[in-house]
């Protein structure tokens, strides 16, 4: 559609007409594809996996570069402020030593209490461990790219965690890489409970890196700033006792919290088996959709 009036040339007129037909066809095709991807999100799983594989080498190769640059910048910054940092670290160390003794006592007490309660800690074997090499940069959705794929045994629907806490679950799998739905995504609902008191709550992403916490029972707002929320294992997808987030602000009947595992800084992420594989397909307890794999 270069010009509105192509002149008397039949060839130019037909060319204009066919390009117009093509662009309308492109629009219709796009709308149909969009409708299909909204109705059945798994329809394009193959194409999405292939695209992940195509971009995975770029991300993985450049990850070394950015890690090195970050390391150099961070290292230079450390030298720049070495004297102050040294003093601050010494102060911190003194405080930490005291805290460590307290923590040891608490750990011992905890062990005794657990033995009394006969709690079993179910250890789930990790399927694979990878690095988070990228993320959705310009979307209201929060996805991260993980450097392991179906070659390493990763399947859609598996939970992903870092050392600090829960990261999310796998939604798209390629051979070499996979896409993870972060817990800060709006559609990621995690059944959780509070570490203090054990009251059941629900964590929903807010799309901007934070999560929204709501108590399951209506009543007084149970949260306090600084509260830690951990997974409850309800729904069968996420394993229990994984830290999720720390409360930073209260609102009228819930709280806003920051995930403990920062995907930008987590060096390694572990992909685990769904906590109860059978349950992750069937169970939708209380309208929780967190357990339904896409």
């Amino acid at each position, binding site marked *: *559609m*270069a010009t*509105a009036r192509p002149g008397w040339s039949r060839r130019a007129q037909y060319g204009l007409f066919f*390009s117009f037909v*093509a*662009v*309308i*066809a*492109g*629009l219709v*095709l*796009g*709308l*149909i*594809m*969009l*409708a*299909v*991807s*909204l109705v059945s*999100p798994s329809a*394009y799983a193959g*194409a*999405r996996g*292939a*695209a992940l594989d195509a*971009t995975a080498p*770029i*991300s*993985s190769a*450049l*990850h070394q570069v*950015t890690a090195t640059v970050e390391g150099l910048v961070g290292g230079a910054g450390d030298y720049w402020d070495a004297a102050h940092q040294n003093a601050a670290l010494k102060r911190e160390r003194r405080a930490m030593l005291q805290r460590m003794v307290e923590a040891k006592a608490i750990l011992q007490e905890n062990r005794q209490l657990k033995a009394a309660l006969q709690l079993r800690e179910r250890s789930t074997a990790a399927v694979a461990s990878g690095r*988070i*090499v*990228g*993320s*959705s*940069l*310009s*979307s*209201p*959705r*929060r996805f*991260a*790219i993980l450097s392991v794929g179906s070659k390493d045994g990763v399947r859609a629907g598996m939970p992903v965690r870092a050392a600090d806490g829960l990261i999310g679950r796998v939604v*798209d799998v390629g051979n070499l890489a996979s*896409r993870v739905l972060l817990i*800060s*995504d*709006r*559609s990621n609902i995690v059944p959780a409970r509070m570490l203090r008191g054990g009251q059941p709550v629900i964590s929903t992403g*807010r*799309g*901007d*890196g934070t999560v929204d916490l709501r108590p399951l029972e209506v009543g007084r707002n149970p949260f306090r700033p600084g509260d830690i929320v951990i997974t409850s294992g309800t729904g069968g997808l996420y394993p229990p006792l994984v830290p999720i987030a720390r409360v930073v602000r209260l609102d009228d009947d819930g709280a806003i919290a920051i995930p403990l595992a*920062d*995907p*930008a800084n987590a060096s390694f992420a572990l992909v685990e088996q769904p906590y109860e594989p059978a349950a992750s397909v069937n169970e939708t307890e209380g309208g929780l*959709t967190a357990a339904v794999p896409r």
Partner: protein
Amino acid sequence: MVRAALTQRRRIGQGPRTGAALIPAASVVAASLLTAIPVVSVSGWWPDFGFLALIGWRLLRSDPWPAWWAAPLGLVNDLITGAPIGLSVALWTAIMILLDLIDRRTIWRDYWIEWGLAALLLMVSESVEWWVVGLAGAPLPFHFILPPLVISIFAFPIAAWVVARLDRWRLGR
């Protein structure tokens, strides 16, 4: 000496690069691929590079590519960025048609009008994406898309500058 300085630059041997007709489309794909850089964004406030390159080219020239190429370019963008497949296909093609219609009616254009038009297109794009994402199961309050929108609007001049430099380079000027 003076005469040598006064003569014009040598223009022999300068002309469009080989494959100059493909460079605009290739640069849009390259811009989409910027999403693959290993930066982990917590808030998702980065501009949509592929879309910025697309409207940068289309506002600079009316003929960077045949209009229907927007559909395959959008498909590539969807696959790379992880957006719902078909979103950019439909949106980018619709914007090509819209800009062709606008081109027939505008009498004159300057940089401010172009920036305003780009801001409008970015707003349309972000709102449509927000609406589709809501349908796909992640409904957000509308004000969440305002910061990335403002960032995109201020990123457009940079994209337009890069595109203009690229256009001069590909045409050998």
